[in-house]
């Protein structure tokens, strides 16, 4: 239940009390202050229609008695006299048993509370002064009064006094700290912006809102950071001077590849690129080489049809033995296929020449009248 008390016009404070229990308990038992006063901000914000304006009561001995929902039950007897008293209370019958003496005491307590409240409010400047302890005296007085508090109405007054007193206390405390120049965070921010190099726009109209104008340079925060270095004893961070090493393959791999590519530009290679051989089948490579050598042979004969080519001159590669062997190997295919012929010249040196015939085997057989092969093939049966 949320009780709202709005006192008469010369009381400034508005107080809200938030309780979870019904107010019948409040009125019959001695009020436990901490229980009663978790005066939270949510309570202040959630104003409900339960707020009741105080009115002067009619009849009875009550002067300026605050009325609230909580004691609506208690005031049932007076209800005919009250106007605009909003209903609903959970007060039980126990609190209706007041005798006159007690009523007098209640009034006295309430009156004293109100005096205290007004004294705090009216002598505010005086109480703020750090030279006296008037605020403490007021609180001590309130503590004495509190001992006799039995009902919610007095407790509410006590709460109001506490609110006023703590507010004053807070201001007193902050005043203590701002002895000397006060610190203005807005001015601080403005000065910082200037320090960081804010380029303010030249515009008189915008002087009021110059926080929204201008732009900070790129290194604004770095400027401030450098200034911070003069105030901080930060240990410099440890880093390896040459950086750390990468776990990647080093560049020389590329250089090796380039070195390999360069020799291939030469016409004759010392070592053949194995990769090339592996890509193509052995047979194709051989065939290509044979064709290539045939090309050389033909071009030689085109240039000089009459002069014979020395076999040795043809096949030998003076810079590479293995190449020579390959040349002999490939040339032998030419001879096998009848595209070239080998013969001995006048000095009994082997020479290599072209064969014009494409199908040499039959012609050769006729020319030499070969009837039988001298070398018997291994699989033929004996006649």
């Amino acid at each position, binding site marked *: 239940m949320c009780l709202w008390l709005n006192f008469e016009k010369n009381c400034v404070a508005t107080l809200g009390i938030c309780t979870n229990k019904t107010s019948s308990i409040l009125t019959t038992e001695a009020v436990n202050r901490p229980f009663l006063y978790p005066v939270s901000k949510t309570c202040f914000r959630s104003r409900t229609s339960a707020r009741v304006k105080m009115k002067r009561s009619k009849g009875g001995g009550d002067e300026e008695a605050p009325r609230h929902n909580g004691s609506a039950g208690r005031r049932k007897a007076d209800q005919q006299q009250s106007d605009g008293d909003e209903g609903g209370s959970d007060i039980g019958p126990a609190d209706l048993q007041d005798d006159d003496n007690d009523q007098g005491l209640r009034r006295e307590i309430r009156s004293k509370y109100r005096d205290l409240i007004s004294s705090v409010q009216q002598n505010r400047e005086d109480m703020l002064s750090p030279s006296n302890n008037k605020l403490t005296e007021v609180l001590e007085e309130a503590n004495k009064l509190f001992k006799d508090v039995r009902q919610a109405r007095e407790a509410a007054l006590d709460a109001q006094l506490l609110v006023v007193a703590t507010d004053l206390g807070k201001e007193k405390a902050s005043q203590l700290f701002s002895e000397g120049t006060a610190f203005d965070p807005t001015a601080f921010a403005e000065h910082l912006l200037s320090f960081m190099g804010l380029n303010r726009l030249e515009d008189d109209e915008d002087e009021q809102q110059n926080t929204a104008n201008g732009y900070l340079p790129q290194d604004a925060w*770095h400027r401030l950071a450098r*200034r911070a270095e003069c105030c901080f004893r930060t240990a410099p961070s440890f880093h390896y001077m040459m950086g750390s090493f990468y776990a990647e393959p080093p560049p020389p791999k590329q250089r090796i590849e380039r070195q390999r590519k360069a020799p291939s530009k030469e016409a004759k290679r010392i070592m053949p690129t194995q990769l090339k051989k592996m890509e193509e089948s052995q047979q194709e490579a051989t065939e290509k080489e044979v064709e290539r050598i045939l090309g050389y042979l033909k071009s030689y004969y085109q240039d000089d049809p009459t002069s014979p080519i020395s076999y040795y001159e043809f096949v030998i590669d003076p810079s590479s033995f293995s190449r020579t062997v390959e040349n002999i190997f490939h040339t032998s295919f030419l001879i096998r296929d009848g595209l070239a012929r080998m013969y001995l010249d006048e000095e009994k040196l082997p020479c290599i020449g072209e064969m014009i015939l494409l199908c040499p085997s039959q012609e050769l057989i006729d020319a030499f009248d070969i009837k039988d092969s001298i070398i018997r093939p291994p699989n033929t049966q004996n006649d």
Partner: protein
Amino acid sequence: EDDDATFTQPSTSQVQRGLEKLTPAQVDQKTAEVVQYFLVKDQKKMPVRRADLVKHVVKDYRNIYPEILKRAARTFDQVFGLKLVEIDPKNKMYILVNNLETPDKASPVSPSNPKMGLLLAILSVIFMKGGVVRESEYLIWNTLRKLRVDPGEKHEEFGDVRKMVTDEFVRQRYLEYVRIPHTEPIEHEFRWGQRADAEVSKAKILEFMGELHEQDPKTWTQQYRQAHSLPNSSQASTSSSSQR
């Protein structure tokens, strides 16, 4: 923290006996490892916990732990000009701070970290406001907003500002962002962290205030008193925790 709970500081005699069983080279090696561990941990400005140090580095040499730490502290001092500071005697946490005087000007060589600029602004506000600022006063966030840093938006230089202030700076012990008890809804307050107490000079901050506002630092009497009265006001000593 289990390791730390079971780690009892060996006595002086235990340390002596432990040292006798080891060669000087071994002890030096272990000291060097501890030094390197600290230096690397310090890159991110995260404090080092004793439990981690013992578990990951000291290991079998834990019986001579105090001697190792003593030698490491000496190395930091004599070789690097750094001070090994215990910022939390209860939880046994250590940081490294610079043993040299704060420079008059920033080093022209090393690059500056813009986060330190932001931190300076925040620490200044907290100090000038008496050492505690409630988050609900919006003082910190509003000041940042005036400086064009909105905690609600991603900043191009700082990224998630809120996280940086309430998480990163807190883990580094530059700030404390503590819950105020008995508040509903939960409220927090900002204070200087233990690292800030050890590293940051209040006197220098006040000097900076004076420059900004073109005032004598003495005009802020309360803060001036705080910055200059206590001998340990600007840095913590090695053995005791920092004063607030």
